[in-house]
């Protein structure tokens, strides 16, 4: 089942095309990664899925679930943002109201969608467990949790609201590697076990190669290459993709150190 579908997406500011994506589908249980460097248009593409690109002309066709994003009413868009698709950003702590316990935050969000009382508590705890957090965390305030926990809580919140799609914009680039591994493990698990569709935006090719099923490589607003992750990483067709792959600093293997420094 296709949960995100993009056709002929073009985002312009004035005469300048800042993102152009001819075609992009994300099915349930699939992770698609948009890879690129700053200014490649990858974040713009992701934000356009939620109708969050402001001050630019967006044309084409974007469907999230059964909602046509570009023609949807503001109320309908809010509904997608709230409960269909979860947006996970680089620093989730900034998006959490600092004066509220995480549990209160979760309860209010659920109440807005008509889920209350014991039902809400159950949904909240279930969502938190699904991202491998202890429900005890619901009693804490945002400043009492780490970056990785906040990131996972943001996903839990979306899950509790019934999201089928996770849109993640550099979800781990502000995190330590050990914490990053946890967030990636959670995303993989949700994809595999709950059939979530994950659209991941990242500049970290190594990371992407460990989770993405398909990859879209963007540069200067345009798609330069796309295909299955295994294919793209094993046999990159575009020179830019090759450059990106070559730029990933490899972890040393024993052989690298036989003759001193460097590979």
């Amino acid at each position, binding site marked *: 089942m296709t949960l995100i579908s993009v056709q002929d997406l073009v985002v312009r*500011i004035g005469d*300048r095309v*800042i993102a152009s994506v001819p075609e992009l589908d994300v099915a349930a249980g699939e992770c698609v990664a948009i890879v690129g*460097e*700053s*200014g490649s248009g990858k974040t713009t593409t992701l934000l356009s899925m939620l109708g969050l690109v402001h*001050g*630019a002309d967006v044309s084409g066709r974007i469907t999230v679930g059964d909602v046509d994003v570009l023609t949807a009413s503001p109320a309908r868009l809010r509904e997608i943002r709230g409960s269909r698709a979860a947006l996970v950003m680089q620093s989730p702590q900034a998006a959490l109201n600092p004066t509220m316990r995480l549990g209160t935050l979760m309860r209010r969000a659920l109440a807005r969608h008509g889920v209350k009382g014991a039902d809400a508590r159950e949904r909240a705890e279930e969502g938190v467990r699904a991202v491998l957090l202890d429900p005890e965390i619901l009693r804490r305030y945002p400043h009492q949790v780490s970056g990785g926990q906040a990131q996972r809580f943001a996903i839990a919140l979306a899950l509790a609201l019934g999201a089928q799609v996770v849109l993640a914009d550099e979800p781990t680039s502000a995190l330590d590697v050990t914490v990053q591994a946890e967030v990636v493990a959670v995303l993989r698990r949700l994809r595999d076990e709950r059939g979530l569709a994950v659209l991941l935006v990242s500049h970290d090719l190594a990371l992407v190669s460990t989770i993405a099923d398909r990859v879209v490589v963007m540069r*200067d607003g345009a798609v330069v290459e796309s295909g299955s992750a295994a294919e793209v990483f094993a046999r990159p067709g575009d020179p830019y993709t090759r450059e990106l792959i070559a730029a990933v600093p490899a972890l040393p293997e024993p052989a690298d150190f036989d003759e001193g420094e460097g590979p």
Partner: protein
Amino acid sequence: MTAPALTTLRRTPLRRLAGVDRLAVAGAVLLGVVVLAALLAPWIAPYPEDGGSATHPLEALLPPSGAHWFGTDQVGRDVLSRVLFGARTSLLIAVAVLAVSGVAGVVLGVVAGYAGGWARDVIMRVTDVFLAFPALLLSLALAVVLQPSVTTVIVAIAVTWWPWYARLTASVAASVATRGFVDSARCLGVPAPLIVLRHVLPNSLTPVLVQLSLDGGGVILTAAALSYLGLGAHEPTSEWGLMVQQGQSLFTTDWWVVTFPGLAILVTAFSFNVLGEGLRARLSR
């Protein structure tokens, strides 16, 4: 390397930017008119001698007319001429107060912010003492002790005004002092006074300049208040606050004597504020 052209994209809200600039420009233009009026007062005032001690008792309290656009006051002086000359007094006070308190505040603030430690403690405690008194009250007390004059007004206001700039500058300078380029200069072995002059001061000035332009209106209002209370400029100096005070009892019968200097205060204070807000919005981008 990514194209430098991309950076221009980050400044996208072009319309907002233009709007902001319009505000700053409007303030600057309005203030420019006041400044021009002040500078050219001796030439454009219809009765230049009325800006001083001339009196024409026979022409007292004439309503606005072709000969006296703003009418005349109790001793027959042309109100328009006195409003124009009054601009000189008000702007002189504003510029002097802002210069004195701005320089004192910025110098002390930058030292406190960069040096930290006991220097900061001492300077900040002194500002606390000044800030503990309501500004107008302190100005009043000072003005009472000193002889009423324009200089008194300047001193009285500047004394209450500088701690604000010291405090603002200190907090900005303290954060600038933690930035990488300051560490980098320290690692090069650049002497501390040079680091302050070259890096900390220029990078701390923007918010202070905005605050100075916002405060111009406040200084003019305070100066007018002091003169109104008889503690500042005195006859025959043209000063708006003084003119308002002298004309207020006549408001019901001879409204023009008090209204035009009052409007002049309003317009000038307003133009400072608009300019300051415009600058703030522009520089905080």
